[in-house]
């Protein structure tokens, strides 16, 4: 695994770069020439109506789906041909819109799998026996960080969708990512939990992490994102600051009649 070439000094490093990605499912053009950049230390939004191709783009970026065309670069390194687990080792992490929890494990153990995965990586692939005590406390700390400190022992199928999403978030953070992709982390969360999430996103950005956020909650997007890309029918229809995007006629047309825009 090669280290990424750090751009010395000049402006914020582009952590994630998506270049002209196209994906076709049979007769459906799911993504067409989609490009975007996420600089280190910023939260970028990816919004659009349901079916616009947001989750498909996440699958392409993380390596779960092969694009028909286009490149994905992580820290300047072309990862388009790498399998998902290799990309993860380069510091790419994500959550899923349709939950992908480890249903047989407790909430805390879900996070622990992530902690242990990143420890093994740092030790060059070999797990060390005296690591055993530490992952436990790291996992608990992460559960606290997403506001679920009291639920470490809970079976994940007992959790609300909102809490389950937070478990996924804690697990995704456990691998100490440089880039994190969050697929509707706010859905199912109450307003207090959303506030915790917004703080967390800002903290992540402040610590240098690049965040790409798919979210329907316009308020959360406006509060946290520096830059927003809008997808509709697989194409980028607008891109800019949240305010620019909000006033774009193309975006208003795409959202016309959709309750999400007016919230």
């Amino acid at each position, binding site marked *: 695994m090669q280290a990424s070439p750090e751009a010395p000094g000049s402006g914020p490093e582009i952590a994630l770069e998506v270049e002209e990605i196209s994906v076709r499912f049979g007769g459906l053009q799911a993504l067409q020439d989609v490009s975007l950049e996420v600089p280190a230390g910023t939260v970028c939004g990816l919004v659009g109506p349901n079916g616009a191709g947001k989750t498909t783009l996440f699958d392409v970026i993380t390596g779960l789906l092969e694009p028909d065309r286009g490149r994905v670069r992580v820290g300047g390194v072309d990862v388009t041909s790498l399998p998902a687990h290799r990309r993860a080792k380069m510091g790419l992490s994500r959550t899923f819109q349709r939950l992908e929890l480890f249903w047989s494990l407790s909430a805390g153990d879900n996070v622990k799998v992530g902690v242990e995965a990143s420890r093994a990586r740092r030790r060059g692939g070999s797990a060390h026996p005296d690591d055993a005590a530490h992952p436990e406390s790291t996992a608990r700390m992460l559960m606290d960080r997403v506001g679920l400190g009291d639920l470490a022992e*809970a079976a994940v*199928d007992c959790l609300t969708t909102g809490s389950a999403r937070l478990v996924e978030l804690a697990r995704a953070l456990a691998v100490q990512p440089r880039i994190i992709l969050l697929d509707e982390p706010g*859905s199912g969360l109450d307003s207090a939990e959303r506030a915790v999430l917004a703080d967390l996103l800002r903290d992540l950005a402040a610590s240098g992490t690049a965040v790409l956020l798919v979210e329907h909650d316009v308020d959360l997007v406006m509060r946290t994102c520096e830059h927003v890309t809008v997808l509709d029918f697989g194409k980028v229809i607008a891109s800019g600051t949240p305010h620019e995007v909000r006033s774009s006629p193309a975006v208003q047309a795409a959202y016309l009649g959709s309750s999400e825009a007016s919230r």
Partner: protein
Amino acid sequence: MNELVALTVVGVVYGAVYAITASGLVVTYATSGVFNFAHGAVGMVAAFSYWELSVNHGLPVPLALAIVLLVEAPALGLLVELLFARQLHAASTERSLMVTLGLLLVLVGAASSIWSPESARILPGFFPGYSARVLGVNLTGQEILVVGVAVAVAGALWALLEHTRHGVAMKAIVDDPELLSMAGASHARIARSGWVLGSVLAAIAGILLAPLVTLDITTLTLLVVNGYAAAVVGRLKNLPLTFMGGIALGLLQSYAVGYMPQSWQSWLPGIRTALPMLFLFAVLLVLPHDRIRAVGQAVARRAPRVAGGRESLGWSVGLAAVAIAAGGLLSGIGVVTVSQGFAYGIIALSMVLLTGYAGQVSLAQLTFAGVGAFVAGRLSGGSTWLGILAAVAIAGALGVLVALPAMRLKGLYLALSTLAFAQAATYVFFDSSHVFGTGGALAVGRPGIPGIDVSSGRAELVVLAVAFALCAIGVLALRRSTLGRRLVAMSDSPAACATLGLSQRPLGIAAFGMSAALAGFGGALYGGLQGQVGANDFGLFGSMTLLLLAVIFGVRTVSGALVAGMAFAALPVLQSHVSWMTDLLGVVTGAGVVLVGRMPNGIFGMERPDRRAVRSPAAAARVPEANRHAELAGDHASIS
């Protein structure tokens, strides 16, 4: 030259039958998403029913055919679909595999009860006495018919799938199920016709094949492996490729009969019989692998609680005490049966590791056990611990070797490759006189333990109980370790694991190797207990039955493994008391699995008061909302 033509013609005839049976498998799989392991058994039952009607009861051939093909086979397909296949559509590969394996055992058991395997039956071919010269080769009426039927089946499937409305919908499901469900076609109706059509095709193949080979339950049931191979050539959805695969396999077998050097066959007498398995294995190796996909929360299954270290130690001491007491109370045969139960229990523990934790299905666990027994027996007669160690090491290494190429294939394809491996190992290796000796009886001794006279049955019982307990402690400790958590995580969500940087291959290979090693250990102990072992101790049906028992009693728990082992040992004993049912084992196991399809964790993994459940009041307050949120999430999921 003439020989080549003759072999080609014969190869095409056999290949045609494989093509028919494989097309049935493909039709069912593609429309319902269930790979029917019982496909061959359906053909077998049809062939026997046809024999019963036309030969035994003297019904005219057309009438007998009509009853079997137009009434029995569709009814069987419909029954399967109604009974349980429909619930399987959304279920995991692992569960649908178990249920069709159960169906296979039910059909084999029922057939053995009705048509005793003791007496030989002959099913005459169609058009007896008729023969024609084709390309200078004499062909019987039966052989010409087979090719004709294959062509007709191919034509009929083509016409159905390309030119009828219903057929086009079936084909659409093959290509893109999600697209079709969006278009609003009824999935259930299409799956039902897929099961009926598949069942009829299995019946046609069974009736055509029986006169060419032999009217035998096991032979006909397992000949479907040839169909599996052909179907896999078509990646389980492409019918033209499937037909080509069938013909290719037929030709390969035929040329092997003609051209394989004699020296090969004197070394490996079973090589010819094993060809279809080797073919299947080879095809699986060149299949492009599927990418890991995020599937969302399809099956939320909660695992049974995992016992802690102290708790498992306590149970183990109890188990040893019970074994000591049982040794005093039981009769001679009872002691042997319970001892066998512990040995089988260890093999079942290997299934807990692989299937229960890692979520992979292997149909070759008794094969690994056989390798263990063989190695232990060959090395100083099994009476040293070195022999046992070697058994564990070699079985484990073999497991890794089998898993290495197969690991990139998951679920169904992996199960198929273990099936091919198990059958090939039986034909080429176990049946060879070099392995278990002439007559198939290799002596295996028991390693000594200072201070204990292991030649006594009662002492051996305690030794095996302790061995089981140690293995169970080990398996549970593994489950609580980092590796154990990873295996479970990989089974629950390969996509999430990949995005955490965990690669599937090394984990799967590790699970497979450890599981094979454990099975090898169980096999070596079983050999020592029996004194001598042969190929029959380690057959494919045995592996299937033990696996199904483990699933029934709970393949995610060690107690489930123990009871499965005991049941596997006890069933033959029980059976000797109920002579009216010649295959109690198959029927009980199969019926159990069909029921257990609704209970994914098995009897010992059922919900109990859960200690991990939510504790704090704050946490409890969040729970009641769960259902509402789940619905909301579901809405999102189905649209984007």
